[in-house]
């Protein structure tokens, strides 16, 4: 203890100023803070004080214990521990019991519960709880005393084989993706490169040379789909204008022939 601290009493017990730690604490000052924090509450502290002096819960020298208790509470203040209201409440309860003991006894039946009985019961219950907690801690626990014995049976969940994917399927899927993507692409309208009108003239020119032309001869493979469509449109336009006629044999699916309209009569 330094000289400066000497002037500030740690606690006042029975009017006596304590400038040093009470002898019977047996706690090094640096450890005191940790020690005080270790109490689970006022009942725990009180129980500690009673047990330390081997008193029975039902046989507490109340004045003695109250003073000690208050001394601890004072110490807690000194160490600026958060002095929980519960500790102060207990101090008040002890002081009340003490004052009752000092007063002459009323033999008259007291309506309210004797605070001593209440305190005793609380202490008993708390001690029981403490013991139960210790018993619980003693119980073997999974992960502390025991480990689950398990072989490495890692059942894959769910144990399904991966489906086989063939390359054609993959390509098909890719095509579908492209198709769908196309639906979202902008449709550009381009100027028709092959004019139907021009093709009509060409068809007529062909028919000028050979009057019966097989329908399929009018198409040119190298023009592709688009060319085919134009040719078909041209033929249909010519038919509509009655410039050509189309004939077919009696049986279905026989070749179609295109010829100039009215040419039949001459033929």
């Amino acid at each position, binding site marked *: 203890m330094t000289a400066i601290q000497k002037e500030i009493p740690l606690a006042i017990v029975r009017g006596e100023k304590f400038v040093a730690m009470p002898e019977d604490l047996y706690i090094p000052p640096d450890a005191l803070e940790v020690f005080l924090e270790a109490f689970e509450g006022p009942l725990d502290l009180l129980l500690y004080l009673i047990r330390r002096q081997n008193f029975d819960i*039902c046989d507490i020298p109340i004045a003695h214990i109250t003073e000690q208790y208050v001394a601890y509470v004072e110490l807690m203040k000194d160490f600026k521990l958060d002095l929980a209201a519960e500790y102060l409440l207990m101090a008040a309860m002890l002081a009340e019991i003490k004052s009752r003991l000092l007063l002459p006894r009323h033999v008259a039946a007291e309506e309210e519960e004797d605070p001593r*009985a209440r305190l005793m019961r609380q202490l008993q219950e708390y001690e029981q709880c403490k013991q139960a907690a210790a018993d619980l801690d003693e119980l*073997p626990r999974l992960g502390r005393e025991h480990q689950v*014995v398990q072989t490495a049976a890692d059942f894959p969940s769910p144990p399904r084989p991966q489906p086989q994917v063939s390359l054609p399927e993959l390509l098909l899927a890719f095509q579908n993706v492209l198709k769908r993507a196309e639906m979202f692409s902008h449709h550009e309208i381009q100027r028709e490169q092959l004019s139907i009108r021009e093709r009509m003239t060409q068809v007529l020119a062909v028919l000028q040379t050979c009057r019966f032309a097989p329908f399929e001869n009018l198409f040119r493979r190298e023009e592709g789909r688009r060319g085919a469509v134009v040719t078909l449109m041209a033929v249909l336009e010519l038919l509509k204008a009655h410039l050509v006629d189309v004939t077919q044999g009696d049986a279905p699916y026989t070749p179609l022939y295109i010829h100039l309209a009215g040419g039949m009569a001459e033929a």
Partner: protein
Amino acid sequence: MELATILQAILLTADKPLSVEQLETYFLPEEKVARMAIRVALQDLQDVCAGQSFELKETASGFRLQTRAEFQPWVQRHHEEKPQKYSRAFLETLALIAWRQPITRAEIEEIRGVAVNANIIKTLLERDWVRVIGHKELPGRPEMLGTTRHFLDHFNLRSLDDLPSLAAVKALDMDKLQLELLG
């Protein structure tokens, strides 16, 4: 094939304790394994485990194989994380819920003399050791807490009856109360 050995294989590969009823489902009807036969075989398996590093243990959820406590120092050695040590507040709260269930927070506070740490209750609920088993018909309808089967499994207990009995509380005899002004 010995039924006890088959049961051992099942329990070795199960990831949770299995009850007799659950074990029964591992057998086909034509295998004609009666529930009684499983019980007997479990007893045989227990005998087989004698002298082994592991034992057959029955907890609330059923049977499991677990290492014996005496091998824990070696089993644990290379584990980075040491098994958790619980604070006194944690253990006292859990103990009150276990022994005094159903119990409200206020009742826990009453006995411990300090406010219930909300984090402790939260941890207990999250761990599925404790659950709300009802509400007390009081103003505010406080939750009543109780322990779960998971709690029993973790602490190697078959039922709450397996909990160590509480230290007896002596009845208070007011006449013998000797709170005196000594000192």
